[in-house]
């Protein structure tokens, strides 16, 4: 088990990267604390898997250093890093039995047979495949195979961290939930550092203590699920997390007011006059948009209302920009509704990044 530091890591798949656009991973500085459960969240192609492969040593970063417990492992081979990785598609050695699959990493490292046997039985019990130990891995179900992939990581006592690369993609929805809670449980039991790559926000938010959101090869925010929800550092985070995502409306800032077209909303923070922003936006989560009667707030054109059981989602637009609101149970939607923004929950973004200075 180890603390993992990524120090100025950059990676490009091109031999001679010139512009920032050539980098799949633009300068990442990140620390995974020992024993933490992290999720790397982002849309496809944002560099999540690249980052993961750099940690496991399947890729060597173009620039920067990787440290395990303060010691540089950038040049170490995958085998020497003692990392376990679970891939998107289950990898099992078809011709081996379930037992041999689990024993494989230990035997490769020359662990004595008695110890192998004891460890493998322990893992078989944990992943609940004791009854199938002697069967060939070929022909098991996808979730059983994925459990074996996971088991091969757990079986080693020297594992520094377990990396998951969208491990539940091919698993049935019901089994996803079961496996995820098993992972959570294993994390508590063993205390491994776990890094979980996913593009599914539910998976990320339920699994991890801390979520690392990536966008376009950069880390845009690291935080607890609550922080990501309340104070998205980047409009992408706001848009990506939450269902529906945060409303982002182009605006002009005038002191402590944001002007959206002909209307104004109050802000609790303002622009630093020394910084020039090309683009300013107001972000507010649909949860914090209240509906008012005509004349009370910003005029809202209602396009659709979706009833999702516990609440309703109002899909509307304002000045041609989409604006969603969540209407709680028991609340009615006025005839010609207007939108009221809660100033405490209204965030200001300059060039897509959150402005935190006071007004």
């Amino acid at each position, binding site marked *: 088990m180890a603390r993992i530091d990524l120090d100025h890591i950059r990676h490009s798949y091109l031999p001679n990267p010139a512009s920032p656009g050539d980098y799949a991973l633009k300068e990442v500085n990140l620390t995974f604390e020992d024993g933490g459960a992290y999720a790397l969240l982002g849309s496809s192609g944002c560099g999540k898997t690249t980052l993961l*492969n750099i940690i*496991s*040593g*399947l890729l060597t970063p173009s620039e920067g250093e990787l440290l395990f417990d303060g010691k540089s492992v950038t040049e170490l*081979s*995958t*085998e020497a890093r003692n*990392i*376990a*990785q679970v*891939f*998107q*598609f289950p*990898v099992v*050695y*078809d*011709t*081996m039995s379930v037992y041999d699959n689990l024993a*494989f*990493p230990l035997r*490769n*490292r020359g662990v004595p047979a008695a110890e192998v046997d004891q460890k493998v039985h322990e893992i078989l019990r944990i992943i609940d495949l004791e009854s199938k130990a002697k*069967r*060939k891995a*070929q*022909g*098991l*179900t996808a979730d059983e195979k994925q459990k074996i*992939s996971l088991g*091969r*990581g757990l079986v080693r006592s020297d594992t520094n961290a377990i990396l998951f690369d969208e491990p539940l993609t091919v698993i049935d929805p019901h089994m996803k939930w079961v496996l995820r809670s098993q992972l959570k449980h294993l994390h508590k039991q063993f205390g491994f550092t776990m890094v979980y790559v996913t593009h599914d926000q539910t998976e990320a938010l339920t699994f991890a203590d801390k979520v690392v959101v990536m966008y376009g090869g950069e880390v845009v925010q690291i935080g607890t699920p609550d922080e990501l929800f309340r104070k998205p550092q980047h409009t992408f985070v706001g848009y990506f997390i939450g269902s529906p995502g945060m409303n982002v409306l182009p605006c002009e800032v005038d002191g402590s007011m944001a002007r959206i077209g002909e209307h104004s909303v109050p802000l609790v923070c303002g622009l630093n006059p020394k910084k020039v922003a090309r683009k300013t936006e107001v972000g507010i989560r649909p949860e914090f948009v209240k509906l008012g009667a005509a004349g009370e707030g910003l005029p809202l054109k209602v396009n659709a209302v979706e009833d999702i059981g516990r609440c309703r989602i109002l899909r509307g637009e304002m000045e041609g920009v989409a604006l969603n609101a969540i209407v709680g149970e028991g609340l009615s939607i006025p005839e010609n509704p207007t939108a009221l923004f809660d100033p405490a929950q209204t965030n200001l973004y300059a060039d897509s990044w959150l402005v935190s200075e006071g007004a």
Partner: protein
Amino acid sequence: MEKTVNNKAWFMVLPVLVLVAFTAVIPLMTVVNYAFQDSFGNNQFFWAGIEWFQELLSSERFHDALGRNLIFSFTILAIEIPLGIGIALCMPKKGWGVPVCLVLMALPLLVPWNVVGTIWQVFGRVDIGLLGYFLNSLGINYNYTQDPVAAWATVIVMDVWHWTSLVVLLCYAGLVSIPEAYYQAARIDGASRWAVFRYIQLPKMHSVLLIGVLLRFMDSFMIYTEPFVVTGGGPGNSTTFLSIDLVKMAIGQFDLGPAAAMSLVYFLIILLFSWVFYTIMNNVGTEKKHYAGEE
């Protein structure tokens, strides 16, 4: 549901039936017919019963040719299969090298069989052949027209040159279908190069290898053209395989009865071996199905 009976449908199948009858069934029956009779010129036939078969099965000439065939087939399998796997493993998986290698590999397969024979016949000649001249100038006494060992070596090397590509291409197809994650997982598990081959690459090549073995066995067991062109079955009878012997008997000596009996036995031997291979392949398949059924 009521099954529709439409006898007109048979007309659709008729051309195929006629074709198969003329190309396979009728010639085969003719051979069966000859095998039980003795023939003299002028279309005179006499019933011979199983005499030809008895004679054939106790004939030393047949035993020797059969023995040579088996030795030849198993020798080339023992060389071509490991060599083919080895070359396939060395071939690049991406980049400009892939089409280059594939074309190079496919070249020998595109050469007509008698041309392959001619190439090697000339190549191995002591007077004008590069190989023959070179070996002799090194002091190795190589002459495939006089020395049975040299003749065998030439025929085997020629077959390896001609057909290893097939095994390579089959194995390569198996190898490129392995997802990258398998190799990555093996690195993480600390697997050695040998373990990667034994537990990842070989299992993935398993089914194509069985097809390769089957094809190479059948083809090599029926080999005729190349050794006929190079050695003509000699020196002596040392490279006379069943097919060459059969042609000698049927066309050279015009012994239609014994030749027909030999054809049938030859055919049955190939059928038997193919059946054995087919059964092995099928067993592997049902094992898979068995597990899949439990899912």
